[in-house]
């Protein structure tokens, strides 16, 4: 393959990757009552409809809430596990890695079914959001772990020793040396965890309690019966919000990270 065929091929792949996203955003600007692309006349009417639709707004709220709580826990648990994995695991490292990313390797559908049985078995059931939250922590943990352990791998343990020789106690070492140096991985892990949680479908579907539909569930539900561009408007808002967060983190927090 010559360089030009390669470039053209890749360009087509990039178009393929972007196509459904562009189509959704385009369709959301439809002026008509039916979903068409390219849109027939531009209008923001479906956004207005969406902003008056409590069901979607509540779903977005639920999703944000679940993602925030799940991320909080998986960042703490995943970072601790990554610290152990990189510095103390020794010969068991390979096994530990497989165990920690296993939620990613196991089929989500079976994990969901297994959790559902388990929760009923121990009497927790799906009356509360507990089951769904646990599911989300499980599914986001591997991403936190992979990001943080990757940045810990490039962490030189001599830094810790240098800090010790200079008189730094464990907590000071963690706060002043380890934390700033693994910050890129930590931010990456948090971001990933949040985005993944926002996108989890099967686990949420099987483990949700009544009235706690997340955005993907609500959207899917809507799409089964409706063809109006409102779904496209909801999707577009979701896409743009994610994009905004990613760019914000990259620009604001990311800049400090890239300083060294």
């Amino acid at each position, binding site marked *: 393959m010559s360089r030009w065929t390669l470039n053209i091929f890749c360009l087509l792949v990039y178009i393929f990757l972007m196509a459904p996203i562009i189509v959704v955003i385009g369709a959301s600007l439809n002026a008509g009552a039916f979903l068409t692309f390219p849109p027939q006349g531009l209008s923001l009417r479906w956004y207005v409809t969406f902003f008056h639709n409590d069901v979607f707004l509540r779903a977005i709220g639920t999703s944000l809430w679940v993602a925030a709580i799940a991320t909080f826990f998986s960042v703490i648990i995943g970072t601790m596990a990554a610290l152990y994995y990189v510095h103390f695991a020794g010969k068991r490292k390979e096994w530990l890695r497989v165990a920690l990313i296993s939620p990613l390797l196991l089929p989500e559908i079976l994990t969901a079914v297994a959790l559902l049985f388990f929760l009923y078995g121990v009497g927790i059931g799906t009356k509360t959001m507990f089951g769904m939250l646990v599911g989300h922590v499980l599914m986001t943990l591997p991403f936190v772990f992979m990001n943080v352990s990757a940045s810990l791998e490039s962490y030189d343990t001599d830094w810790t020793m240098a800090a010790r*020789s*200079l008189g*730094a106690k464990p907590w000071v070492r963690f706060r002043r040396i380890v934390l700033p*140096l693994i910050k890129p991985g930590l931010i990456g892990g948090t971001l990933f965890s949040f985005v993944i949680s926002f996108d989890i479908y099967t686990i949420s579907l099987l483990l949700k309690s009544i009235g706690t539909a997340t955005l993907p569930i609500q959207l899917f539900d809507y799409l089964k019966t409706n063809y109006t561009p409102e779904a496209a408007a909801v999707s577009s808002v979701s896409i743009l919000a994610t994009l905004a967060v990613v760019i914000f983190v990259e620009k604001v927090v990311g800049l400090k990270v890239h300083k*060294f």
Partner: protein
Amino acid sequence: MTEVRLDGLTKIYSGHKPAVDAISLTIPSGQFVSLLGPSGCGKTTTLKMLAGFEDVSSGAITFDGQDVVRVPAEDRDIGMVFQNYALFPHMTVFQNLAFGLEMRKIGKAEIKRRVQATLEMVQLDHLADRYPAQLSGGQQQRVAIGRALVIEPRILLLDEPLANLDAKLREEMRVFIRALQKRVGITTVYVTHDQAEAMTMSDLVVVMFDGTIAQAGAPSEIYEQPRSATVAGFVGQVNLIPAVVEAHRPDHVDTPFGEIPLPFPAQPGAKVTLVLRPEAVDLHRADAGQGVPAKVISLQYSGAIVDYVLEFADGTRMDVKTIPRHRVMVGDEVRLSVDPSRFWMLDGEG
């Protein structure tokens, strides 16, 4: 100014033979000591035990008579320079130096003053606001030394600090570190596998093999009066000449260069090994009146100095290193002479 004593210091990793095997050593206050040996000889493990990064299996480490074995590294008050410097990449040069002082709860103004003074000492005051990644290898090295010294530690430990520098810079840094150590007067332990570094910088050289101290002494002593063939070979090129102490003149030994007096008494008839440094041999023209005849087998120039391999009539060979005063070619006949005082002797066959 701290005197460091190691007493029967031992490190055993379970299931292995001792990494450091009951070594005892006294480092007088203010001295520069090198731990010299091949990789795996236990020198780095010894240093890490001194620093408190490795647990001691048995034995004692005392600073001025105070046992520090149970003192954690962060309370041991040592300055350590790491092989790869271990500078904190997210802190400026100034912040790197200030870190240890902050840990000691020293006031801002005092920190500023002391960091400034140390930066001047390591000639980096103009780079205080740079990040480590923006510095050259030699500059990073000096930051590492400054960071270790600014806290005014009891002892300074250096772990192969010059290994990552190029040859020219290494020479410069040797001189720099030694001069700085003399100025500060701090007891210093320096780990290296480079004999030239150890010899040029140290007051005391400790040669280690297999977790034990093979010999400890001044550089000249290690070089001229090695205690074993291994030590002799590790600190420089050497000719080992087997010989027998004469039965009728027990203070002499017969060599290709004639009978020479022994450096120390030995049993008559005992087998000994003579140690002769290649540069101790003088090379003369074949028609010179004195010296043992030999033939040039090969020669190799390394600048001013030439390395020869010579062969005697009985087939034994000898390495000679000299600045030739006349032109010598492979196959030439030459004559060799040695001043008897340059021979050293080992018991047995080395």
